[in-house]
């Protein structure tokens, strides 16, 4: 049953082949059995899950169930969940019980999903390996000595090991797509503004976006149908009609032009990954797509740009964690300054502090113009270059990551090398575009992802392109041996 996709489970529930309660029990049992190895959950909400499953089963009895009713899911611990600890992977919020649901959580709850728990993540989503989590790293189900990616590493590990059929993630610079690639999942980072950010704990407000992490594009489409939409509580969410993302999944790819940014396929790219993408391109050609090379000349600036903008925003976003109203507070502060300094020194981990210092620096008087203002200009340039590319092609294709999942501890003391693992993903956040990573093959038993990027609000096209590929390939069906 755990090898079924969300879509398959939806059908099974509808046909009463299985109850939500049985499903819930099954997945909770798997979490109990496997998660001590994986550390993919920070909080498991078993009691709550059974209660929701009962309600779901009543809906099936009454005939009032929707496609997601009774489906177990997990939320990244960055999304606020009413009455449930929402830690954001940090000691700072280890004692924080959110008093409200994030809008995305609320929507999935209304749709009848059953919440199994909250998944592990890099602290405040700052990291690419899950190693900055206060709760210790989550492990990659394909190789427990390797990272599951980050920051949504708990979600990717849990879905890859089939401890839950699907999970939410959030993506500020690649945090859905990179762990999806490392764990052989489909991960969609929607257009900025497509989903509400209300209740998504802010890392970098102009880049953050939640999204689904699933086994297939079809599963992602089902979740997007519920997660997407304007929210009056988020001024940056956008009034744009939400299509039924499942409708266009099977559209033919005859008229599709796939663009290959030549910068993504330079000599630096791992030849094994290049070979996997070339093979995928052959598949797409067989499906009727045309291929065209394009250029994104400024994309080499994306990493430094990202670390200026994201750090600047987070230095301000995380100022609220001051020990005054909620969250961690240091013991016996002698005065206000001591309270602030020790609360934040003790409550935040090293990587978060690094970025807070970096962000404070780039916004400081005398440096603001040289860093922040300049970064905003280059950001406009990057947006323009994507627009130009999309005048010639429908979607862009490239690798999701420069390598397969790396070893735990391999990069944790080398921030630059860690930052470079997001080299193909950060520009998309800077340009506010939708992008998705899907399984494309394996190197030495480790999954490789490829990334499609599209015009704003064309998530349906991305899911269509991914789904057609998944109809003719079975990379996405592969499950790590020990979790079968």
């Amino acid at each position, binding site marked *: 049953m755990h090898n079924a996709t969300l879509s398959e489970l939806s059908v099974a529930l509808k046909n009463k082949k299985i109850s939500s309660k049985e499903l819930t029990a099954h997945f909770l049992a798997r979490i109990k059995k496997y998660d001590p190895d994986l550390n993919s959950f920070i909080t498991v909400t078993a009691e709550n899950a059974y209660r929701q499953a009962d309600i779901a089963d009543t809906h099936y009895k009454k005939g009032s169930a929707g496609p997601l009713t009774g489906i177990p899911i997990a939320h990244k611990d960055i999304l606020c969940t009413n009455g449930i600890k929402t830690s954001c992977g940090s000691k700072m919020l280890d004692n*924080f019980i959110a008093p409200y649901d994030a809008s995305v959580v609320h929507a999935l709850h209304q749709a009848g999903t059953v919440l199994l728990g909250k998944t592990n993540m890099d602290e405040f989503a700052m990291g690419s390996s899950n190693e900055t989590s206060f709760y210790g790293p989550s492990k990659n189900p394909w190789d427990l000595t390797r990272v599951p990616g980050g920051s949504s590493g708990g979600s990717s590990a849990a879905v890859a090991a089939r401890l839950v059929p699907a999970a939410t993630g959030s993506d500020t610079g690649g945090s859905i797509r990179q762990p999806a690639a490392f764990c052989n999942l489909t991960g969609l980072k929607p257009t900025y503004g497509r989903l509400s950010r209300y*209740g998504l704990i802010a890392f970098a407000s102009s880049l953050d976006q939640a999204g689904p992490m699933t086994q297939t594009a079809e599963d992602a489409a089902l979740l997007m149908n519920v997660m997407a939409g304007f929210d009056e509580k988020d001024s*940056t969410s956008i009034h744009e009609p939400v299509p039924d993302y499942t409708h266009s999944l099977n559209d033919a790819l005859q008229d599709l032009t796939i663009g290959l940014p030549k910068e993504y396929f330079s000599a630096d790219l791992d030849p094994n990954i290049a070979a996997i993408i070339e093979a995928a391109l052959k598949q797409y050609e067989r499906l009727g797509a045309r291929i065209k090379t394009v250029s994104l000349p400024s994309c080499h600036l994306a990493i430094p740009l990202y670390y200026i903008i994201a750090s600047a925003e987070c230095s301000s976003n995380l100022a609220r964690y001051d020990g005054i109203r909620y969250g961690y507070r240091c013991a016996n502060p002698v005065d206000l300054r001591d309270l602030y300094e020790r609360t934040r020194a003790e409550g935040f981990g090293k990587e978060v502090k690094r970025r807070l210092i970096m962000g404070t620096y780039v916004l400081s008087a005398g440096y603001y113009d040289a860093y922040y203002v300049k970064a905003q200009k280059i950001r406009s340039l990057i947006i323009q270059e994507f627009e130009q590319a999309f005048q010639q092609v429908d979607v862009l294709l490239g690798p999701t990551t420069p390598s397969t999942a790396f070893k735990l501890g391999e990069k944790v003391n080398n921030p630059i090398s860690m930052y470079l693992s997001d080299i193909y993903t950060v520009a998309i956040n800077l340009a506010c575009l939708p992008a998705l990573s899907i399984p494309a093959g394996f190197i030495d038993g480790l999954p490789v992802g490829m990334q499609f990027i599209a015009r704003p609000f064309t998530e349906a096209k991305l899911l269509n392109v991914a789904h057609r590929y998944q109809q003719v390939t079975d990379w996405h069906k592969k499950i790590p041996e020990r979790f079968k």
Partner: protein
Amino acid sequence: MSDNNKNTANETKDALPLMWEPVIGLEVHVQLSTRSKLFSGSSTTYGADPNTQACHIDLALPGVLPVLNAKAVSMAVQFGLSIEADISSYSVFARKNYFYPDLPKGYQISQYESPIVGRGALNLVLESGEQKSVRIIRAHLEEDAGKSLHEALDDLSGIDLNRAGIPLLEIVSEPDLASPNEAVIYLKTLHTLVCYLGICDGNLQEGSFRCDANVSVRKKGQKKLGARVEVKNLNSFRFVEKAIHYEIKRQIKILEKGGHINQETRLYDSDKQETRPMRSKEDAHDYRYFSDPDLRPVQLTHEYIDILRKTLPELPHKKNQRFQQDYGLSHYDACLLTSHCAVASYFENLVQQKVPAKLAANWIMGELSAALNKANLSIEQSPLSAQRLATLLQRVADKTISNNMAKDIFAALWATKKTVADIIQEQGLQQVTDHYTIIQIIDTVLAANPQQLAEYRSGKNKLYSFFVGQIMKASGGKLNPQQLNDLLKQKLDQPE
């Protein structure tokens, strides 16, 4: 309001040395009278129990986001239009970052590089009657912080976030003001304006209208501005005047001794009536402003601005001119009546009920204002409506009763719910206007005072008022004074 209009002007007028020239600019925080906060749905009602008007957004819980209150935007635009300022069709909210316990997010959402209201001017009428235009640099929207409470909690400080997020319009003037008195006139003019616009309740005690002053002095004729000191905590017109005056004298004293002024922020202590250092330029914060990524830029269309322009209420200076033209009021009367919007509408209400303008003006500024002051009420809270007062003043106008009688009736009208007609009847206060009756009374009085009559007729004119007094006394004050005058003169000057 805590201020007595009459005293402020002269109180601190003692000698500022003539060779020095003060240069003053003001930053005024006007609390906009929206029902909900600038970025959340919490109520803005004053005086609620601590933290009962602070929602998730005001508490800066993880994950919450601000949503701009459209009403606050329209109020800011209305203000801009009223001072004929540039209205930005594109303005941006920025974060001002600093740590303080009553600042829940660790930043204040404000406007920095692109304020919603650009350059404009506020026109003042100085005490001399001279007009002065004070340039306004900008006005921007921002949220208020909460309050730290240090009293009543042993060893602890409390935080009340009811005020956190309340919308403020910060109005910044150029340093165009040349004296403490001008500063106060500027503030009063601005206060009147925002009350007229209905964008502020104008309550100084509750902090709805707060002011910081930038003060420097320079030698007369010198072009370069002196080092500037920002004086904070000025929460009444009187304190503004006193604090600025004190600060100017302090600076002059230092400069005359050959010292130099530190650029710093000082706090006014109203008990000690002095300013004292709060922080120097060196420990000024680096606020690390940057545009708030949670809020989209505010984009205003010409249509939107035009609609607001068309619905702008009549502004104080226009009303003042109209009062002089339409009602023949003096400049002085018109100023007094239009200094407060509610007073002006009370006046117009009286006039609409056919009360002559001058009579209405005199009564508002005389009896009514005295009674209100005594009861410590504003005109909005007056127990005596314009409608009821009009019924009294109509009787004065048609000479049914004298002005003096009306004052007695006023007291009864103020204290009871009786009608003017009832009171007149009850107290028998109807004015006597019948010729025959008046002549009878005159004759009786003259007959009773033959000696005085003889003296008057032999040239002792002063005795005229003696007769008026006696006659009024005899009639119980009910005679129409004009009629009495005419008839008495006839009697006295035409001997039998």
